[in-house]
């Protein structure tokens, strides 16, 4: 699992809450990062959605050069069954099935950020490449009502251990952001605190809807 160069971009979201709503854009691997963060978030008060940013949903296959590729719009259910058929033992062993099982109970299928019309307050990515893609997406759009959205990147490596730690980190950050009375004013400081606490570099940028 650790060696996987997964490029599947799963996603997850909640309804926008009337107050500062925080949305998390998680990248890459379904199991290891984005959705891992999800259950933790779910127990808290803020709403979370997760998305992919790539063109396709890519999951590890039988060999590094043979990934399983699906279009966005495919349901988790479908993927689950497909993989079960292909090699049940392999995908059980590497935890993929378990992950998909969990995911299909959370939402129907992977979503693509670019196709989502909801507005978020915060977008969090777990990899710089994804962060770039998000920025690119926003840049290519025409801002309409100038609602600011904060894009934050926290690098989380693509393995179970890191993903678990990362999930807590993100949750921690989200809690702080949610608790803030005035996000715009506080975010700089919050992020710096977070950085020094988590000892991770954070990228941050403001974009507009």
């Amino acid at each position, binding site marked *: 699992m650790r060696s996987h160069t997964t490029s599947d971009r799963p996603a997850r979201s909640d309804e926008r809450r*009337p*107050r500062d709503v925080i949305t998390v854009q998680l990248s890459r691997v379904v199991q290891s990062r984005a959705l891992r963060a999800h259950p933790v978030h779910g127990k808290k008060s803020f709403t979370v959605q997760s998305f992919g940013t790539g063109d396709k949903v890519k999951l590890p296959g039988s060999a590094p050069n043979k990934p399983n590729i699906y279009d966005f719009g495919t349901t988790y259910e479908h993927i689950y069954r497909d993989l079960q058929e292909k090699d049940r033992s392999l995908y059980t062993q590497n935890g993929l099935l378990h992950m998909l099982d969990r995911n299909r109970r959370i939402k129907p299928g992977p979503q693509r950020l670019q196709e989502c019309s909801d507005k978020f307050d915060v977008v969090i990515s777990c990899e710089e490449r994804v*962060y*770039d893609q998000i*920025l*690119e997406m926003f*840049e290519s759009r*025409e*801002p309409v*009502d*100038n*609602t*600011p959205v*904060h894009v934050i990147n926290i690098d989380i490596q693509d393995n179970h251990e890191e993903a678990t730690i990362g999930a807590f980190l993100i949750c921690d950050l989200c809690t702080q952001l949610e608790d803030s009375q*005035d*996000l*715009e*004013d506080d*975010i*700089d400081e919050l*992020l*710096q605190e977070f*950085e020094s606490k988590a000892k991770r*570099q*954070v*990228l*941050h*940028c*403001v*974009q*507009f809807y």
Partner: protein
Amino acid sequence: MAAMEVGNDVQEQCVELLNEAALLTDDVKKVANLKKVQELIIHQDPALLDNFLDEVVAFQSDTNAEVRRAVLGFIEEACRKDHEMVPKVVANLSLLLQDSFSVAVVKRTIQAIGNIYKITLQWLSQARSVTDLMDSAWSMLGQMKRQIISYVDHDNDGVRTMAVKFMEMVVLLQTYSEPGSLKRQEFCLDGVPMTLKIARPRKLEEEARTVFAEMIKFHGSPHISSVNLMACMGSLTLIARCRPSFIGQVISALESLHANLPPTLSKSQVNSVRKHMKMQLLNLLKHPASYDSHRNICTLLTDLGASQSEVARAMPPAEELRKRQRRTEEPPGAADDDTPGTKRQKFVPEDDDDDDEEVPAGRVASGARLAPVDKMKHKLNAIDITETWAAERLTPQLAADLVLVSMQHLPDAPPALFSNTFTPISAAGTRSQIQHVARLLAAQLTKAGLGPGVEATRNQGIQMTDHDWEMEDEEEAPAGSRRPIATVLSGTVTGREAKKKVALLPSGQMHKKHMAKPLRLTEITRPLPKDELEKSMTAALDRLLAAEKPARVGGLFSVRAKLLAMMSAHFTPQLLDKMLVHILEDMRGRADLVFSWLYEEYCNSVGFSNFGQVMRSTANYEQIFCMLISALMVRPDFKDGEILLTRLFLEAPVVPASAVDILKGFSSDPATYQLGLQLFGQLLSGRPGRQASYVPALLQLATGAAQEIRDRALELVLQLHQSSATLATLVEQHAVERLKWLGEETPPAQLVTDQQSTVPEGVTREWTDELAKLCLHLYLALLPRRESLIHELAHVYVLTTADVKRTILRVLEAPIRGMGMESPELLTLVETCPKGAETLITRVIHILTDKTPPSVELVDRVRDLYQKRVSDVRFLIPVLNGLNKSEVIAALPKLIRLNPVVVKEVFNRLLGIHADTGNFSSPLTPVELLVALHNIDPAKCDMKTIIKATSLCFAEKQVYTQEVLAVVLQQLMEQDPLPVLLMRTVIQSLALYNRLIGLVMNILTRLASRQVWTEKKVWEGFIKCCQRTKPSSYQVLLQLPVDPLREVFDTAPELRAQLRDYVNGFTASQREHLPADVFELITGRKPGEEPQRVSPPPAPEPAAEPPPRLPRARNRKRSKRHPPSSGAADAPMKAIDY
């Protein structure tokens, strides 16, 4: 009919929802209800807008921010739907913009106003005629716009961000679209008719440029937050992409930012900003209009770490570039085609899509519009100008120099920013790299306001900043009646508008609820005018001062003191005076106030204060301290002042240098010097750390003219001198420096000015005793403590004038005595006596040996000096007692030739007169001395001097007692040959002590037997002695042979008769003992003849017998002249005087 029903249905629903919402306490549901109403009205039945607008908008006074935001959403949508709504809601927007309770509402309001502003301009442009209502709405929006733009300096980060976005909107809205713009479906200046009076396109565009300049300024401000910076960067890029004429400025701004990233950013923020900038630049690069700046963009991108492939990917297709190039090479000559707004209107943005290849008529117009813009860009771009300038000069030599110069300023460790952003230079030395470096330098120079580019654009810059916010047209605001707009901040509408316009009241405010608004001081305050401020401060101070008693009673005394202290830190001179008077009224009671004040002032001066400077105080800590002490010092009633003054000096945080000066002045006043010096003393012990700072003042006092002050100050200086080695050095240096002044021919100006009172001006400066002493006091006081200083004196002494020398010798006694004979330094001085300082050394030795015998070391050194270098015998005098007998005797001839006073001194020393008898020891006993005097070789010293010397001995009767003289006489008599002065001494001794007669007879007898007549001088003395000692001497005379006796009679004829009488009284047997010739000589008859007369003495027969054997007739004549009976000591002296 059905539609009506639907309408009613919706209406009912809305009424229900709104009623429910009004009663709901759950804010979330309230918001949901409003959202539903919005949905129903906007999307299902816009006709109801009019009915429900007031009801919905009434919720804007809800206490919940989310509800207010929902209202804003409704307003926005309503305006979008129906432009007629705008005038109804502008006043509400204005209220919401002031919302001081929730920043979120303000942000949302800005967002809404942005849209509504755009909508309104569109509405105005499309309306057939402009009504008063529209006019009012527009001008109110204009005010809000200005307010929002000013929010770019707001406290809240988010509000600033929104303000930036709003500015972006204004710029984009109020400029014309251009070819190559991003395709935006939006309304812009293209759609505004030239004829629109209340919003002239020209004015609008001008305003847009100003706003753009503001954005650039904000973008370059040094302490911008990272969020603001990125938002601003994004906005600028967007503007550049939509309005390519701004590209140049935007790229310069980005370059300048890249070269001067705000120092406040953290490491990761720097990363984010760089990443963002890279993204923006890539976006710009994609834009075909950026062709001209491609080089700069690519350089920047490379600096930001973009790879070649990334850059290449972002480059527009080569074909498009070529086209672009062609277009710029042959600029459209249709510059005259610049006017018509009509053409512009034809040129709707949609057309742009496929127009590129065809260059239609509209293109010409737009190209023409571009031309002046390009010109402007070049004129504006200071960086470009400076870049060219720098590139021309950037030779390897200069580059090396620059590197060397900046080496010094390199920090020890590379800052985070640098290590983060550094990319190795790959193309060093190439043309492009030089160009790049020049560019970077130019960015820095321009930022610092240097370089030719800045000069060139200065005028332009002034025009930009002097922009008038006034948006009214000339027609509407005729000359002379221009409406004054107080400030950008001001929201007041006055003058013409007030009377002419329809007053726009907020909708739904019939039943205004008063919301509790939190106080935001910075928002509602504005700096007072200066005079008013001062008036208020004065009044406040007066009240505070007057409130002393109430405050004390009420237990707020310390609070009052603190308040006053804090205020005082910002006082004007008048207020300071007031405060001072207050303090001086009751110095004891208000001392605490003084200290609070001082400490506050001190905190300000060293930057501890966290209290914002309301008004810069004109006085600083030092001035106030000095003011206080000066005021206290001149007070006549000194008692209280004295205590406070002492406390001030001892308890203030710091005693400034100028205060020490004042204290010095205070101390040099004879009336107050005691307190002043006492203060100095307390300072020395109470603030030992700062002792060094009091030294110069004390030294000056210690060398002053007034004695009491000087003495006290000297004590303090000596105390200092003891306390630390460094201070001691300082003091000594000062002392030596002053000492050296003595070596100059005339007193140095400094000394004279120090003592102006003693030396009137205009008088030629000359060394006086006073002046010389002034130079010496400190030195002499130090001398016993630091004996090595004595050598300095010796060197200086050589150079001084005679007057000064005298002074020095006179004042030297006490310190030298203090040092004592054992001082090794003094001994060294004697040993190394510089040429010319002999008198000084003599004096020193004199002082040392005045009361005590010289030590062996001293004697050795003096002897050495005497023998080797200075043969002045006076040197020896002080140490005479230390010399051995032979040395003294050898020196005697020289010694007695000196001034009689000195000779007396010499004898005193030798004889121990005045000396402490206990430890006195002389190399010569009195006897030896007198004998030695007698034995001086007349060749070395004339007789007269010796006689004088012996007389001195005789004068000391305590020493030369009878016994002593007896011994002397005996010793002399035994000498052979007899000393010349023997008989004189005998006579003298006899004159002093009659009882010596026996001894004298004895001597005479002995002399007679030693044929005394053979020694002429002694013989003369002998005769004299016989004359004096008659009748005892008759016996002696009778023992003389006849010839000498005859001589005696020749010299002293009276003796003959007396002797004859004497012999006549002899018995016959007695006579028999006399030789016959003697008898005959005496009596004139043969022995056996009876005397003719017995009782009367025989008449002298002087010439009866010629003295055939008498060698010297002259003697007789001479001796006749003198009366023989003289008992005075002088007579014999004269007799022997040759």
